């Protein structure tokens, strides 16, 4: 029987898959080296973004310019305003009149006005409630909220002093807040881990979004198809080299997060490596899927720009709390892999290894990896026929 078969079959025994794959990977590696933009994507982008984000993005407002209007200065008003001058959150600027202060608020020279009306001293001495007027610029609602919180804090400190000196009785209820995992409430500790997911989404898609489209566009795909390589060989040959490149970028990001930005790492590196590997497969798979679907680089690049950065930035829970989004939008977040990885990263960095939280996220990532890579194979095979 075997003698009647064509000789070709004998020349390509099963272990030659590896040989074919090696050849394709070597070709891909050469292409990477010759157009260094892939290497730049893997290493330059993480460094650039982590530096910019790590230093540039902060939700902790400090030295907020605040206008103070004191209509009749007394020692009581001076005590009150002192708590603003001693706070690192405020940069107080005194104004003589409300009109001047309001103009400054309109021109964005101050972010808020705190006004003590004329009878403030009298009211406090008489044991009545003295109203304090606070006007904030609400355009940036988040900063406005923070400022209101800071003003409340400064008032509370002034009150503590009065209580200490026995001039008023203590508040009936004292809140004793304890913030877990991030006791000093540094926004960087929560932003940098999530950032790793945003960056890896970009890198994964950027690395592979053009690789298949490029072969179609240049006509080299037809050339590849005349060789004995199979569809699987081509896809694996595209993914494996970029997987290594992406791993390099990921390691770099994690090292920078811990080494440069002093974000505590309380979980296990093995778990992080596992999650990172699966996530990278999803990100590369997504890029490859774009590439297989688009067939030309122009469309592939445009699709990559649209589906990667802003969704990973806004819908992953990296910055905005998913629980506060409307249910429909929460549903949409489930289709973005970054969401699962962000959850794992934030916990792995700040809280430690929490398996009941990690396992569902890891399973979701595995399913997505399987889905993307499976779709790539399915569509690519259809294209070949």
């Amino acid at each position, binding site marked *: 029987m075997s003698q009647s078969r064509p000789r070709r079959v004998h020349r390509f025994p099963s272990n030659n898959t590896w040989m074919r794959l090696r050849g394709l990977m070597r070709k891909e590696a050469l292409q990477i080296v010759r157009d260094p933009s892939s290497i730049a994507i893997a290493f330059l982008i993480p460094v650039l973004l982590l530096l910019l984000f790590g230093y540039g993005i902060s939700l902790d407002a400090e030295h907020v310019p605040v206008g103070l209007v004191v209509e009749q200065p007394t020692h009581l008003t001076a005590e009150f305003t002192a708590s603003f001058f001693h706070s690192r959150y405020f940069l107080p600027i005194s104004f003589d009149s409300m009109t001047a202060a309001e103009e400054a608020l309109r021109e964005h020279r101050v972010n808020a006005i705190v006004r003590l009306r004329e009878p403030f001293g009298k009211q406090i001495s008489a044991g009545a409630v003295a109203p304090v007027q606070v006007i904030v610029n609400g355009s940036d609602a988040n900063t406005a909220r923070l400022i209101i919180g800071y003003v409340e804090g400064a008032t509370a400190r002034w009150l503590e002093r009065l209580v200490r000196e026995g001039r008023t009785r203590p508040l009936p209820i004292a809140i004793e807040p304890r913030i877990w995992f991030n006791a000093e409430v540094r926004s960087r500790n929560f932003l940098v881990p999530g950032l790793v997911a945003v960056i890896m989404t970009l890198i994964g898609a*950027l690395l592979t979004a053009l690789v298949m489209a490029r072969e179609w566009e240049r006509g080299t795909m037809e050339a590849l198809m005349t060789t004995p390589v199979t569809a699987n060989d081509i896809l694996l040959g595209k993914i494996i080299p970029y997987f290594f490149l992406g791993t390099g970028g990921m390691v770099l990001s994690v090292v920078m997060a811990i080494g440069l930005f002093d974000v505590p790492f309380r979980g296990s590196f093995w778990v992080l490596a596992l999650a990172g590997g699966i996530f990278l497969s999803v990100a590369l798979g997504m890029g490859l899927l774009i590439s297989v679907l688009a067939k030309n680089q122009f469309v592939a690049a445009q699709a990559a720009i649209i589906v990667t950065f802003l969704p990973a930035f806004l819908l992953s829970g990296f910055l905005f*709390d998913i629980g506060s*989004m409307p249910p429909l939008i929460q549903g949409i977040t489930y289709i973005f892999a970054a969401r699962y990885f962000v959850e794992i990263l*934030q916990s792995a960095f700040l809280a430690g290894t929490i398996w009941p939280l990690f396992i569902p996220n890891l399973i979701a990532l595995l399913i997505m990896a399987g889905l993307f890579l499976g779709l790539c194979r399915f569509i690519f095979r259809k294209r070949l026929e």
Partner: protein
Amino acid sequence: MWVRIQALMIKEFLALLKDKKTRTVILIPPMVQLLVFGYAATFDLNHIPFALYNEDAGPWGRHMAEAIQGSPHFDLVARISHEADMAPLIDLRKALVIVRIGQHFSRRIAHGEPADMQVLVDGRNSNTALLALNYLRTIVQQFIAQIDEPGQSVALPVKLEVRAWFNPNLESRWFFIPGIVGSLTMIVALLVTALSVAREREQGTFDQLLVTPLRPTEILIGKTVPGFLIGLLEATVIIALARWWFEIPLVGNLVSLYCGLAVFLLSGLGVGLMISSLAVTQQQGLLGVFVFMVPAILLSGFATPIANMPSPVQYLTFLNPMRYFMIVVRGIFLEDMPVDMLLWQLWPMAVIGLIALSFAGWLFRHRLY
């Protein structure tokens, strides 16, 4: 000269709009994204999951718990009675906040002693943690005001009367949606320009363009105008959605908004063409887009205020055209920005746009490989 530019413009329009995939990619996503992101981008918390650990047997503990449950911001997810139950709730993100009311809470309030209330917050998202804590503080303060008995000396001698200008309910959507309008406009400008020259170079058609009688300035105009018109059209749709779908007040005037938009588009298209002319392959063009776009959006004040950045980074933001447009678009949507303030934001964008465009034009002829 006009005929030549016209011919090039028609060709560019066809390149962008004739291919069905390109057309879909350019026209549909910005609108869908505004709708999705408009709802996603908010720092307002509602339904904060909280757990209650009430050790107090008296009435005040119950009243306090009811006050928190009654708030629209908090949802009770669990009542616990053992200290050991607290950690898993926070660890697994079942609860963001745990309120623990101590054993002697009611007795202390009755005796006029300060009663303490422990609050545990999940700090993995530090912003959410701080906001949740602030909401809780407000509830407690209102509660204190309620239990203050008349006749007795008041516990809180001052009362903050807070008013917010331009956004009275402090809805963070009013802040983010104008920002999304800016970001999406920038992305459209980059989509239509950043790969166009790179693609022609990679396919060799750019050399053909250079041997035609078209001069670099004419190529520049021919490549900019179609992108400008597409960008203007999309921005108009996005602005209309922001105004009528999300009901963001548009208090400033439209002429100022469109002046700002035109200058901003010009600078975005200029940077896009510059990236495109620097790139030899589309892969490099794509890399260029990300290297510009991601920092441009992050350092524009879109999500986090520029004032929070360290001062070297703040200086860096002066190079970013989006920084100026964010001020313009928010100023006009929410504040009715006066014309002199508008002009101060317009001229740097115009300078950036002109430099980028002229550099792109220069590169057409001086980068020949």
